[in-house]
């Protein structure tokens, strides 16, 4: 029994990593704008396709680059372009509606998501794409446990991003500005901080992290289609809510919890058929007793 539990914990960490990376985007935007960016799952999808494009381009060059370099190139390229996409979406679709009722912004976000899906569908066609295996998949057997280099890489890259983000938010001026806006937005401009710039930065950061998630996800689950962001987006959004939306460490925690729920529920149930039902009932119970999520603060002034 022990190897099965250990194997599933490893599986859960792999999936939870991706959820955590995407949940961060939801939570950061909510923290700053109190708006749920429902297009975020689709931004992740675009990031995944961009890293595929970069990887295919680098593989096609007659230079025979080492896999590690291709991985790094794809990572940086897709993070950069997806960050630009995130900023553009905020600038064109959300900023004009900043004074409008919150419902308008939510509907716009859903619209942007549909736009991204159908745009990808229109230019790439509906056939699923295959992500080339950059990292060796041969499993190592360690004490009844199957482990791949890719799994290790996913865990290491995710951990690195989470630590860097935590440092950025807690130790830098930009991070301080982000926290200030989330704490008390009307006061921030009075301190001479450009709110628009901080918001743009937040979108860039959230989108870039989603793109990193996209590359890792593409490597682990190498079948890409234009609708892939929908399901992941929902699970990541729920991760953010469970962790306490608006709270960055909460989103990280929530991602791993959702990954664990998805992987461990079928293990203890007699049939995997009831997985989603049991998993979401558990989450519902959690939110009944702790409506603000695990690490969220109650916000009395915003109803």
């Amino acid at each position, binding site marked *: 029994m022990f190897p099965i539990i250990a194997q599933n914990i490893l599986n859960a960490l792999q*999936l939870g990593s991706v959820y955590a990376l995407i949940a961060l985007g939801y939570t950061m935007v909510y923290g700053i704008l109190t708006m749920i960016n429902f297009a975020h799952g689709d931004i992740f999808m675009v990031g995944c396709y961009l890293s595929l494009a970069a990887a295919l381009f680098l593989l096609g060059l007659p230079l025979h680059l080492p896999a590690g370099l291709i991985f790094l190139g794809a990572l940086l390229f897709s993070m950069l372009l997806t960050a630009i996409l995130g900023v553009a979406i905020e600038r064109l679709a959300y900023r004009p509606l900043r004074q409008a009722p919150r419902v308008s912004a939510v509907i716009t976000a859903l619209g942007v998501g549909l736009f991204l899906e159908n745009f990808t569908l229109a230019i790439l066609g509906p*056939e699923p794409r295959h992500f080339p295996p950059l990292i060796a998949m041969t499993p190592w057997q360690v004490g009844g446990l199957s482990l791949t280099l890719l799994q290790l890489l996913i865990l290491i890259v995710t951990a690195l991003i989470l630590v860097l983000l935590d440092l950025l938010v807690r130790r830098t001026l930009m991070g301080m500005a982000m926290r200030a806006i989330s704490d008390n937005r009307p006061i921030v401009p009075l301190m001479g901080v450009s709110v628009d710039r901080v918001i743009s930065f937040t979108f860039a950061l959230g989108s870039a992290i989603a793109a990193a998630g996209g590359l890792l996800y593409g490597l682990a689950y190498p079948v890409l*289609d234009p609708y892939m962001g929908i399901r992941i987006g929902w699970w990541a959004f729920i991760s953010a809510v469970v962790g306490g939306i608006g709270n960055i460490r909460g989103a990280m925690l929530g991602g791993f919890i959702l990954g664990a729920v998805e992987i461990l529920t079928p293990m203890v149930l007699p049939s995997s*058929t009831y997985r989603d039902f049991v998993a979401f009932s558990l989450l519902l119970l959690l939110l009944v007793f702790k409506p603000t999520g695990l690490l969220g603060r109650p916000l009395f002034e915003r109803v």
Partner: protein
Amino acid sequence: MARQLMVIMVVWSAFCLGTAGLSPAAEDIRLGVNAELTGSKPTVGDSCKKAMELLAEQVNQAGGLRLGNKSYRLTLFVEDNEDKAESAAAAAQKLITQNNVLAIVGPNASGNAIPAASICEDAQVIMISPWSTNPKTTEGKKFVFRACFVDDFQGQVMAKFARQHQQAKTAAVLYDVASEYNKGIAEFFKKFFEAAGGRVVAFESYTKDDKDFSSQLTKIKAAAPETLFLPNYYNEVPLQVQQARRLGLTCPIIGSDSWGSEELLRLGGPALEGSFFSTHYAADIATAKAQKFIHEFETKYGKKPDDVAALTYDAGQLLLAAIAKAGVPDRRRVRQALATIAEFEGVTGKMQFKGAGDPLKSAVILQIKNGKFSYFSSVQP
């Protein structure tokens, strides 16, 4: 002069009227295509659409379908069902009410074909699904047909294959619980495998759009089956096989006709080497009729037809044969003719209808060898 001109005009117009009355009226037969053009299995919809367009082009170029002294052109109306049950029903509804079609070819996936079949049955419009193998599609319906075998047969074929050829005493199944096709065939496989003296040691499921199967596969690995049955679609099987191998699951893997797309090989790569699956026809042992179709399809589209294309072509030809047999494009009479086709030789082999919507036909087992589908054996009903 003016009088002469008038006489010429009168004669000329009389001539025009006369010829108009004599030549057969250019009437058309409207056929609907309800296909999965977008959504998770676009290759299926694409093959279906292409095969029907090829057939319509061939018939129209040959002067249309002749019934008595009239000849009819085929007009196709293609609707995208987005690979969703509700859109498949809506597409059928639209083809019937707006385009007033005589018959509909498609949908292909059982999850879409079952709801569309109810709509067609209620409206008494003929529907032929090329690829839907779930028994529920035609069950209790008079106007719904299919061009393929049924899953009880396919489940039996693969259960027998696992027991006899693979000598497996234990088997595991992983299937999509949200899809009628996958669920149906998984249950038939289990029933027949156990009836043949085997034991199903793990019967695990997932839900549409899942990409991570590690939990279920870890459970399956712990049950140590001698074979793993994956009756799932070509876009999911590669992920399942790769993840199974990554978790150290080494048993042979077998599948069903939903594997039969070239996309499977492109997405799955070497992980699929050596696997077996049951399907409708094998291109490498094609009959003269099949070879002609394969050649024509390849010339027009620049790629080999998959089983959906072949079955769609058969569905279309069955329909034309039934219309010719009925003699008039009338839904009830064509339905009657179709249900009693005693022998029809299509691209995917011989078929026989005995009053209901399911044909009697054989299945083939293919093996994936050197990155290609290759013929392994045939199984008669």
